[in-house]
């Protein structure tokens, strides 16, 4: 298995008729992902066509789920309407809502996250690259690609990758693939201060997944999420973990692109997090070029 999504997972895209959503819907179809529905309010009944694929468009998430059996949604809706789109997923009892949208107001996310507490729908993101479970075909074709990651850089295998950042995830994945090490699932949890799924949530899933043998965890300055995950790893994780923390040179109090990447206090710095990683037995990559090798130093695959 893999975690969260698999080759057979049926996906819908909210905002499939927008430029951004449409572009990535096409790439997911080309990758062989089971993209079975689109949702754009007011455009129900239309069809999204690409390379011979015909994806029906629905007015609501509930209708799309009912008609097509889609259990997961990728959200490409503009920021002012994105929290509403997320809440529509939990109303429809989906398994997973993946919010790609960048720039959602924090207050909207605070309310959305509170509303989803205790519900079955899991949120990943927002402001995230999404997730990929690589397929077994050429260049990992046939996998489940949700979001904006390049599919072809993956390779099916046994390393789980979790990260806040998109391009750093691709960097780690590409390093693994170039060394012949494939991935079970790669999860981008997003760079916002309020997100649906934390590093720790994903680490726990990897720990329980029989296909995942080793883990790469990529973090940043700001917040306590990586530290929380590292402490849990020390106490409970059965699998080797390598880690990297970005932002060693970031000045305090400045937002480094991601809304969540701000050094708030002494505990937030890269140096403090790296120290805790090391104390927790995580193999720390000295540079972002060293992420796959940091894992291979403690895991032979």
């Amino acid at each position: 298995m893999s975690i969260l999504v698999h080759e057979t997972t049926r996906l819908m895209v909210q905002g499939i008729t927008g430029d951004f959503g449409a572009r990535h819907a096409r790439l997911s179809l080309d990758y062989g992902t089971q993209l079975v529905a689109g949702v754009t309010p007011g455009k129900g009944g239309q069809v999204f066509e690409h390379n011979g694929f015909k994806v029906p468009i629905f007015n609501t998430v509930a209708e799309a789920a009912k008609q097509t059996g889609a259990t997961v949604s990728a959200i490409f809706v503009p920021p002012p309407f994105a929290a509403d789109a997320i809440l529509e997923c939990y109303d429809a009892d989906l398994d997973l809502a993946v919010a790609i949208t960048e720039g959602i107001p924090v207050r909207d996310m605070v309310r959305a996250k509170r509303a989803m507490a205790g519900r079955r729908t899991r949120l990943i993101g927002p402001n995230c690259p999404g997730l990929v479970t690589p397929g077994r075909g050429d260049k990992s074709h046939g996998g489940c690609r949700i979001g904006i990651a390049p599919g072809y850089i993956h390779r099916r295998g046994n390393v789980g990758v979790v990260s806040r950042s998109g391009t750093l995830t691709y960097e780690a994945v590409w390093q693994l693939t170039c060394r012949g090490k494939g991935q079970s699932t790669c999860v981008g949890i997003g760079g916002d201060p309020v997100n649906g799924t934390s590093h720790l949530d994903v680490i726990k899933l990897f720990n329980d997944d029989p296909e995942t043998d080793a883990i790469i965890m990529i973090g940043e300055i700001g917040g306590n999420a990586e530290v929380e995950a590292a402490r849990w790893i020390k106490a409970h994780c059965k699998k080797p973990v390598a880690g990297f923390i970005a932002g060693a040179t970031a000045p305090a109090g400045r937002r480094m692109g991601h809304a969540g990447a701000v050094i708030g206090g002494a505990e937030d710095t890269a140096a403090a997090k790296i120290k805790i990683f090391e104390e927790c037995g995580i193999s720390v990559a000295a540079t972002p070029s060293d992420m796959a090798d940091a894992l291979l130093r403690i895991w032979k695959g």
Partner: protein
Amino acid sequence: MNIHEYQAKTLFEKFGVAVPKGAAVQTAKEIEGALAQLDGTNGYMVKSQIHAGGRGKGTFTNGFKGGVKFSATKEKALENAQAMLGNTLVTAQTGEAGRKVQTIYFTEAANLGKRPDGRDDEYYLAILLDRATSCPVIVASTEGGMEIEHVAHHTPEKIFKVQVDPAVGLQSFQARQIAFSLGFSGEIFKQCVTLVTKLYQFYWDKDCAMVEVNPLLVTKEGKLLALDAKVSFDDNALFRHPDVVALRDLNEEDAKEIEASKFGLSYIALDGNIACLVNGAGLAMSTMDIIQHFGGSPANFLDVGGGATKDQVTAAFKIILGDANVKGIMVNIFGGIMDCNVIALGIVEAVKETGLKLPLVVRLEGNNVEAGKATLAASGLTIVSGDSMADAAQKIVKLVNNK
């Protein structure tokens, strides 16, 4: 987005949060009129309005000491204001260049009360997001008027926190908990409950990132007042607050950062001499890190986002070259979806257009990377190619340090 103290206090008043009466001026000729509106029985406070902290202990480049001054008389207030207005204030947070003071805020000085133990009757109050719980949290302390980080480190028992459930908002009992935790009773207790309630309403309604009142004080006359006000807003929510956007003061922002934002670039200037241009925030941060790891010093954070078009790359080069400290550039692009050759063509055009003479190392990875590298090689320009992030960082550090 940050705003000035006088703007924050105007908003506080609108929401019913008690503040000392005040008036702001931008020109010398407004000073007398502003002072005439205020009651100077207890004297006046004359406060330089810049976004950076540490104003009270700051020094002006003309030698005048103190960006916040108590003035016993109207004449003294006028004199102090004239010394500050239009001059440059250097504080611990402004850097050596300092900030030009373009607004002076006068307030009626408060008659600070004393606690039974003789200490000033000052408190601390803030509202912000608690990332661990994804809920707003109200932070209060009996130790006002000092750095809250200091209090948290040395006397954590003097910090009280109340977490607000966003489903129902701040409850009355929670406002009472804050007022009790600060040791208030009677009339001041009631004022505190009101102030906390109104302040939370302001924080929530206006999409604030943080509201901080330090100090919150009790006057001898028995009034609870927000003596200082620090407010920042969630940039992502500005679209629904045009009244807040109108308070933006571009004089307080870095000109290069403003220019960068026009092209969808996220840019932050640093002190080093190796500029970088990267796609993605996480990769941009770690590109700075890897430059430092190999003995260099990064000049900036620059994220071109997912696109990296020719126009963006050209704009980015121009912004980078506007920094006289820059002695070399490292471009680091993981072109997952986009065609690396398109990026390479953009880089070549940008180098030609800007007449770049500094060493340039480019690391391209991803889609159609071989064609991209060939484009760079065939350009006739002295662009060094890096095979990995580590390789590129080592090359640019060597090129810059050996000059």
